[in-house]
């Protein structure tokens, strides 16, 4: 994989504090303000969260409609059985209300899961972020290399304020987050691997919060 251990996944603490500050001061009542940025809905689909099987995913939007959590049940790869290279994904398409004069971007995303890998086996977790209708995307990769006898991972992606991933000014937007797992056991086909989610309820968890700015 290219770009393993992207540097965007390092500065977790500073950005988290920044986000907490923003969200605390913008807590609102149940009815969202039409002049504010808020989440209208989230749709999920992919091999790891098939739309036809709604039990595979659980999505919760916060009361202020500025963040959400997705819990996955079936985002899991294991070897054996199957082929040495395997992949699965879940894409969340988030409809956003964006009032005139504003544009919106994503601030932080945290992904959690578990990797068990034999020697020389490799697991890759990639998160891809983009606005629909807007070709630039931001992608963060992390490689986990075996042996790992039970590594609970947590990756936080901090999307810089001046990142390319911003909605256009004055239009509503759809923000997409595609989470992909790739398992590569080709360098040790006799070893066992599991690359999945952590908790008993689901596994991956994404916590999202939006930052916003005025159009110039």
């Amino acid at each position, binding site marked *: 994989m290219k770009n393993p251990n992207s540097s965007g996944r390092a500065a977790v603490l500073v950005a988290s504090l920044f986000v907490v500050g923003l969200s605390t001061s913008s807590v609102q009542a149940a009815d969202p303000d039409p*002049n504010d940025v808020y989440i209208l809905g989230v749709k*999920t689909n992919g091999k790891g969260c098939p739309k036809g099987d709604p039990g595979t995913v659980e999505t919760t939007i916060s009361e202020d409609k500025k963040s959400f959590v997705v819990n996955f049940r079936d985002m899991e790869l294991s070897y054996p059985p199957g082929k040495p290279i395997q992949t699965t*994904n879940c894409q969340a398409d988030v409809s956003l209300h964006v009032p*005139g004069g*504003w544009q919106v971007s994503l601030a932080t995303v945290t992904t959690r899961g578990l990797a068990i890998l034999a020697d020389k086996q490799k697991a890759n977790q990639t998160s891809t972020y983009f606005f*629909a209708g807007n070709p630039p*995307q931001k992608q963060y990769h992390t490689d986990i290399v075996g042996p790992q006898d039970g590594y609970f991972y947590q990756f936080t992606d901090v999307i810089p304020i001046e990142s390319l991933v911003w909605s256009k000014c004055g239009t*509503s937007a*759809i923000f*997409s987050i595609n989470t992909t797992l790739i398992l590569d056991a080709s360098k040790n086909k006799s070893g066992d691997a599991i690359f999945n989610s952590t908790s008993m309820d689901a596994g991956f968890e994404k916590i999202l919060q939006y930052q916003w700015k005025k159009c110039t």
Partner: protein
Amino acid sequence: MTSLFILSALYACLAPPAGPDPNSVYIEKITTGGDGCPSPAAVATTISEDRTIFVLSYIKMQLEHPPGPAVAKVHCKAGVHLHVPKGWQVALTHVTTRGYAYLEHDMVAHQTASYRLAGVPIGAEYSHALMGPHDDFYQFTDDPAATVWSKCGGPGLFAFTTTLTLDTSANPEGQAIFNTTSSDGELAARVHLDWRPC
């Protein structure tokens, strides 16, 4: 935060009205079919609040080897139904296909997108190739608005077909995965002045 609330108040008058304006161009609905999206459950369709942007997320737009023949193919055809008021032409623009490919040496994968519009003889087709060895995500962006515009006042029915082909015949012992996870695009955008008054 104070400045934020003041600005919010200032922009109150610019809030968009509820529901699409019949005098504007917007997406009415999107229908899908094909072996890569055989039922509504196999594809998630999201249209933006202002109905000018869409994204389709797929489950079955995936080819793998083995098993299967040395040359494999899968496709999904999306019908994008547009509301086109009198005096306007529309197009699709910034259509991006995103996915992942793992190809061992001598394997070739192609992603092809074709755009046709009901009642318009000229279409557009774009093809993108990936050669093994390859282990990475891809994104391909097409701009069918360069060639395919509706007639004035419609009908605005775009047929947008995404096809994946995988050729492993030069390395049948190797493994391959080739998928498309989503396609997204927008109506001819205001900011790009692609809406042409007739």
